[in-house]
């Protein structure tokens, strides 16, 4: 007996929601990055679960692409953060207040 697929789907949905809420609530940029990663990996988990349920290898192949894209994205994000916060001590989104209106 194995764990039913729907459990994984529910777990993925919960992870995705945590990530989305965290992104909206947290102010630290690095924590926001982690939340984005959490959302992407929730999607990955969904892909793998569906691939298993549908007996289709395609869903698992997708995970490779999403992983690489996520890594590329986070590296670019970190690069931007490093460029901005080089002379600052904290990395909070509230410091970014020049552009508004």
């Amino acid at each position: 007996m194995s764990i039913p697929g729907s459990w994984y789907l529910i777990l993925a949905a919960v992870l995705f929601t945590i990530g989305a809420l965290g992104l909206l609530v947290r102010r630290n940029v690095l924590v926001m990055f982690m939340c984005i990663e959490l959302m992407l990996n929730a999607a990955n988990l969904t892909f793998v679960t569906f691939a298993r349920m549908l007996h289709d290898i395609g869903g698992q192949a997708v995970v490779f692409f999403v992983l690489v894209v996520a890594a590329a994205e986070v590296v670019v994000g970190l690069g931007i953060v490093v460029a901005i916060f080089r002379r600052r001590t904290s990395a909070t989104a509230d410091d970014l207040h020049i552009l508004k209106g």
Partner: protein
Amino acid sequence: MVNRETMAQYLAIFVLLALGIVFGAASLVASALLAPRKQPSAAKLAPYECGIIPSREPPQRFPVRFYLIAMIFIIFDIEIVFLYPFAVILHQLRTFGLVEVLVFAAVVLVAFLYLVSNGALSWGPPKRLVEGMGSRTSETTIERVGAGASSSDRAA
């Protein structure tokens, strides 16, 4: 009830977890044992030695190079993920697969060349300043210090 066979799948994960904990603990113990004990005195930690007591904390040194290397590592590390499925079916893909991977490697190589030519991987004291900053003179330094002070005032 979840049977034994299902649980056995997770054995590897538990082993990895245990190894991770052991490694983390070992690193902490090793650094505690091997690190120099003597704490520097308050005078040594002060930024100036000529008697001026700073009114506020100086900004932390921010070693960008470490972050840079780490980020470059992540991106090149994750590219390797494409090579694993390729390696598994290398022979079945015939020439097509090899050519595709060579193209892929060439693109990654160009990115690597770009990094090297920009000095992103050269360790040690930087030979060239960051582009856009220009050569550093006392005037520009004063300017930058002034800019930093006014921006921190605005934030406060």
